[in-house]
């Protein structure tokens, strides 16, 4: 039944991705595509998003659910290429390690970008006040 648990989470992550990616698409790209309005993918706007807590949470959710969904799917595909249980366990092990590494790596830099932007914003505020 363990696999049922993991598969249910895989489906749930797919569902979450549907909304998160939907939001990402609507927020970031659709204006540019449909109405040729503001360039939402410019570096300034991207950095602007980095500085907001809500986007930090959003990025980490996207990263976590995206990684789980994609890597569990990849594990399924790779498992089906072999009948050896030993190799299957090895594949699972490698994928778990890669997943954790990518999650930590991605989260670390999201937090770092968030902090950098916060410092920049507060400096800008100080200059403005002066």
């Amino acid at each position, binding site marked *: 039944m*363990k*696999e049922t648990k993991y598969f249910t989470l895989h489906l749930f992550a797919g569902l979450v991705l549907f909304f998160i990616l939907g939001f990402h698409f609507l927020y970031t790209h659709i204006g540019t595509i449909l109405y040729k309005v503001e360039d939402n993918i410019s570096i300034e706007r991207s950095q602007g998003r980095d500085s907001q807590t809500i986007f930090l949470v959003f990025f980490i959710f996207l990263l976590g659910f995206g990684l789980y969904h994609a890597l569990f799917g990849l594990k399924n595909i790779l*498992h089906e290429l072999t009948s050896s249980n030993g190799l299957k366990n090895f594949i699972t092990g490698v994928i778990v390690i890669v997943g954790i590494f990518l999650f930590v790596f991605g989260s670390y830099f999201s937090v770092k970008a968030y902090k950098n932007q916060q410092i920049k914003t507060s400096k800008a505020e100080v200059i403005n006040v002066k």
Partner: protein
Amino acid sequence: MSNEINVKFHIRRYNPKKDKSPYFQVFDIPVSKGMVILDALHYIRENYDSSLAFRYSCRMGVCGSCGMLINGSPTLACNTQILDVSDKEITIGPLPNFQILKDLVPDLMPLFEKHRSISPFIIRDEKELDDPEGEYYQTPEQLEEYLQFTYCIKCGCCMAACPTLATDKNYLGPQPLSQAHRYNKDTRDSGRKKRNEITGSRDGAFKCHYAGECSRVCPKGVDPAKAVQILKRQLVFEFLHLIKKQEPCQKLHGPGKGEKLDIPEAPEKTV
């Protein structure tokens, strides 16, 4: 006979004791309307090569012995009209995804073992099963829920067509999974939880990606792909506690309200 035509049969031969690898042998067979593939194989054995190995028993699509790969499609040799396949050339091989015992005879043991692993029988309290006091009640609608899956004859055609089984021999496959669904859906059964352990495991239902080949080739018109999708949904819902607890149907008590009937003794033996 004047209305006979000659059809070329390419038969895949392989004797693991003698041959390094499988090879094809070609036979010209006079075919008339009404002949099935199994007739052609008998013709070859009687007239050309008595060492050709193939398996059959009932000759009427019931026993599931004669499954083989006919022009690329797994099906029953006794149930397939030659002229429906081709009037020129036909290629016959053993069912894929199984080891070959000899020529057209696959080793179906892995199928039977996987089938056994899902407890393909009604599971109830044993005391109750031994108690002959009444019948289980099941409505025609409840029977309809699983009836088509009871038509499985374990010929192995669905297993031979499954692309997942082609690379992963440990996957349970469409036959055992559809039979797990058949018994899960039977209102007389209370073994779903026990079967979930197997069907919800790493080699269970979640490995199916709905290629649907199993349902396309089933010679009995069973839809194993559908069974596996329902099984997946049920496993997920059960995990999320979104399914009602399974209550097996009760026994109907006949005359005597559950007491043993007054059945007269059998007359004394006369011989």
